[in-house]
């Protein structure tokens, strides 16, 4: 039982769960994108980092780091592209579409 792996993965799971709560509760697409991209980057960093630590210094370590680099390339690019498309389609931040009450 490697305690560093467990600590990193539990920390990453905390960020993933917080991101899902934000995705569920926030009012419009801009704030949802904020919740998604930030917590996904940090949660992916901690969970994949914990798995890389679990596998030790081998080829799998560098392959998991490559996947982590791809996640860090993918996540901000897709969030930025989605928000740019939403802005050009006429949505504006500040007035949410859904009313919780």
């Amino acid at each position, binding site marked *: *039982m490697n305690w560093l792996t467990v600590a990193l993965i539990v920390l990453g799971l905390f960020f993933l769960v917080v991101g899902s709560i934000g995705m*569920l509760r926030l009012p419009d*697409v801009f704030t*949802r994108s904020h919740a998604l991209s930030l917590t996904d980057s940090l949660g992916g960093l901690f969970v994949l980092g914990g798995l890389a630590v679990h596998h030790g210094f081998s080829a799998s370590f560098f392959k998991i780091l490559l996947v982590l680099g791809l*996640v860090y390339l993918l996540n901000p690019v897709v969030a930025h*592209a*989605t*928000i740019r498309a939403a802005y050009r*389609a006429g949505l504006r931040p500040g007035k949410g579409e859904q009313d919780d009450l």
Partner: protein
Amino acid sequence: MSTFFFYVMVIITAVMLVYLYRVVRGPTVFDRVLGLNGISTKAIILIVLIGTLFERVDMFVDISTGYAILNLVGALAITKFLEQRGETSGEERS
């Protein structure tokens, strides 16, 4: 250690169900694109976890890399298409 990874996989699957709710019930189409992006990021992490559980991580990491590249290209294509479709595409038609 194996049971710990199993419970981590269960929690990540529950998180993916929340994103699936957002994909199904998103008011605009951009919420659905965001939810799909979140689901595929969790799927990348989940594939690496499955490889760790099966002791074959050197094979499953390659699948995960391919999935990440496919998700990047697909999401960029969808957002480019929605961006070029013009002004009236923001609201949901039901």
